[in-house]
C-alpha cells in the first residue's frame, strides 16, 4: 500500500524532527540560563529544595548525559510538573487540548467555507470593484493583530450590543464529557439549549482566529482559479457551450483547489499559533491560555512543556494533513 509507505516515511521524518526540537528546548531551558534548577524550581523554592531538584535531575552530570535523560523522561510521557497547578504538565495540556482543537477546527471551517467561494468570486471579477474590495479585506486580514481584533469584536458584540457572550467556553455546566469537544458532546447528549450556548461562545473566538486564515484561502483560491481559467480544457468546454457557472464552480474549482488544499497544513500552523493569543483574550481554556498562565506565573516547566507539546501536536497534525492529501490526490503519494 502506497499510503502505508507514505505514513511510514513521514513518521520516519517526524521522529528526528521532534528529537531535534526537544534538543533545542533542552538547550533553551538547561544551557542558556545561569541556574536552570532555580528556574525549574520556581521563585519560592528554598535552597534545600533547589539542591534536591539538582540531584534529582542529574544536573551535575555532563550535558550529553542530561540530554539523554531528558529524552528518556519525555518518552515516558513526563513533561515535568507545573509549579502553578502542581500537576504533570502532560496531563494539564492533554485535558485542555480538545478545547484548542475545537476552536482551531471551527476557525478552519469558517475560513474554508467562506474563503473558497470568495476567492472564486474575486477571480471572476478580476480587477473590478468586487476584486479590489476583497483584496482590501485580505490585506487587512493579514495585517491586523488578532488580539486587537478580538478586543474590538468583544467591545462591539459582547459589551455593547450584548449579542454574544464575552468569554469562556460555556455558561453553566458543560455537557457530559465524552469526546471533550463541547459541540460534539452537546449533540450526543441531544441538549440543544446547551448546544446553542456552546456555539454562541465559540462564535467570536473562531471568527477572530479565522480572519487571517480566511485571507490566505481567498488569495490562494483566486490565484488557482485564475491559473486554471487559462487552461485549454476551459476553452474547450466554453466552445462546447457548457454553461459558464457549471464550468467555473465544478470543473475549474476542482482543478484549482489542489494548491489550496496543500495550504491547509500551513493554515493549521497559522491557526495554532494564533490560538495561543486568542485563547488568552477569550479565556478559552485551551493549551494556549495555559501557556499564557504559565508565563504569568513564571511556571517554567509549564512553558517548556507547552513548547514540546505544541511541537508534537503540530507534527502529528501535519502528518494527518499530508496523509489526507495523499488520499485525495494519489499523485502526491507517488512524489
Amino acid at each position, binding site marked *: 500500500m502506497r499510503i502505508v509507505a507514505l505514513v511510514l516515511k513521514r513518521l520516519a521524518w517526524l521522529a528526528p524532527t521532534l528529537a531535534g526540537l526537544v534538543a*533545542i528546548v533542552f538547550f533553551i531551558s538547561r544551557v542558556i540560563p545561569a541556574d536552570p534548577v532555580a528556574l525549574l524550581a520556581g521563585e519560592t523554592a528554598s535552597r534545600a529544595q533547589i539542591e534536591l531538584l539538582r540531584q534529582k535531575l542529574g544536573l551535575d552530570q555532563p550535558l550529553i548525559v542530561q540530554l539523554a535523560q531528558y529524552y528518556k523522561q519525555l518518552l515516558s510521557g513526563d513533561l515535568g510538573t507545573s509549579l502553578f497547578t502542581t500537576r504533570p504538565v502532560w496531563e494539564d495540556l492533554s485535558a485542555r487540548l480538545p478545547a484548542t482543537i475545537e476552536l482551531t477546527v471551527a476557525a478552519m471551517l469558517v475560513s474554508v467555507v467562506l474563503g473558497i467561494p470568495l476567492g472564486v468570486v474575486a477571480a471572476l471579477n478580476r480587477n473590478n470593484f468586487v476584486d479590489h474590495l476583497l483584496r482590501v479585506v485580505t490585506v487587512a486580514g493579514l*495585517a491586523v*493583530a488578532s488580539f486587537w481584533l478580538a478586543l474590538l469584536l468583544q467591545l462591539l458584540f459582547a459589551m*455593547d450590543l450584548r449579542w454574544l457572550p464575552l468569554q469562556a467556553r460555556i455558561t453553566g455546566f458543560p455537557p457530559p464529557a465524552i469526546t471533550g469537544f463541547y459541540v460534539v458532546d452537546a449533540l450526543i447528549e441531544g441538549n440543544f439549549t446547551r448546544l446553542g450556548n456552546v456555539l454562541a461562545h465559540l462564535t467570536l473566538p473562531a471568527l477572530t482566529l479565522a480572519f487571517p486564515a480566511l485571507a490566505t484561502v481567498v488569495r490562494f483560491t483566486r490565484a488557482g482559479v485564475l491559473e486554471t481559467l487559462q487552461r485549454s480544457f476551459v476553452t474547450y468546454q466554453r466552445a462546447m457551450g457548457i454553461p459558464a457557472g457549471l464550468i467555473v464552480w465544478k470543473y475549474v474549482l476542482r482543478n484549482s483547489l489542489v494548491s489550496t488544499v496543500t495550504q491547509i497544513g500551513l493554515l493549521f500552523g497559522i491557526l495554532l499559533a494564533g490560538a495561543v493569543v486568542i485563547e488568552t483574550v477569550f479565556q478559552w481554556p485551551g493549551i494556549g491560555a495555559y*501557556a499564557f498562565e504559565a*508565563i504569568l506565573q513564571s511556571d517554567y516547566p509549564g512553558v517548556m512543556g507547552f513548547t514540546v507539546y*505544541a*511541537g508534537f501536536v503540530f507534527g502529528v497534525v501535519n502528518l494527518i494533513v499530508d496523509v489526507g492529501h495523499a488520499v485525495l490526490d494519489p499523485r502526491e503519494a507517488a512524489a
Partner: protein
Amino acid sequence: MKTARDVLAKLLRDPAAALGLVIIIALVLAALLAPVLATHPEAVWDMNPRQRLLPPSETYLFGTDRMGADIYSRTLFGARITLVIAIVAVGAALVIGVPIGLVSGWRRNWFGEALMRVSDIFLAVPQIVLAIAIAQTLGPSIENIILALSVTYWPWFTRLVHAEVRALKNETFIEAAIALGVPTWRIILTHVLPNVMSPIIVRTSIGMGFTILTASALGFLGLSAPPPAPEWGRMISESREFLPEAWWYALAPGLAIFLVVMGFNLLGDGLRDVLDPRIRRAAGGR
C-alpha cells in the same frame, strides 16, 4: 538586476505599493521625530493620576491611559521600539539565514543536508511557540525579544535561498564559471548572490511585517519590554482591564500595528511584482 531607480519608479506606479512605501516612511519619521510630534512628550513615562483614563479630546487625541499618559504620544514613542525590534531581528535573521542557505544550496552533500534538517526543525513549530520559550527563559526585555525573533526567523531565509541556489546551480553561466576555474567563493559572491537578491528583498519586506505582528503578540503576552515602555502589544493588553468604559485605550496602538504591518505587506507584494515576476502574487503569507 534592475537599478534602484527603475524599481522605485515602477513601485510608485502601483498604488498599493506606493501606499505601503508612504506608510513605512511615515513610521520611520514617527520614530525619529517622536519627541517633536508628540503632544505630551513629558507624559510618556510619568504618572499623572489626575489625567487618568480621559476620553479622546483636543488635548489628548487618543485619550489617556491608566497612568494618565497621553496615548497618542506613547504610540509615537512605541514606533521606536517596534522599528528597532523589526530591523535588528530581521537583519540578524538575514545574516544567519542567507549564508547558511547559500552554503547548503551550493554544497549538495551531507553537510548541506544537515543544515537544512536543522532549519526544518525550527520550521516544525509555529514561530511564536519557540519565541515564547526563549523569551521566557531570558526574561522580558527588548534585547531578548530581538534574540528570540531572530533565532526563530532565520530558517525562512535559509529555505528560500537554498531553493534558489539549487535551481541556479544548473544554469549555464554558473557551469561556465565553474569550468573556467573561478574560485567558488567568487562565484557565490559575484554570480549567485546578485541573482537571489530579489526574492530575499521581497521576503525581507514581508518578514518585517510578520515580525512586527509576532513581536506585538509577545508584548501582549507580557514577554516584551517591561512597563512603562510604550510597547504597542503591552498597551493593548493593559487596556483589557478598563473595557468597555475606556474604549479608546487600545485604539491607537492597534491601528498603528495594523497600518505598519499592512505597509510592509503591500510593499512586499509590490516588490514581488516588480522584481520577481515568476512568483505569483498570491503566494506566501508569511
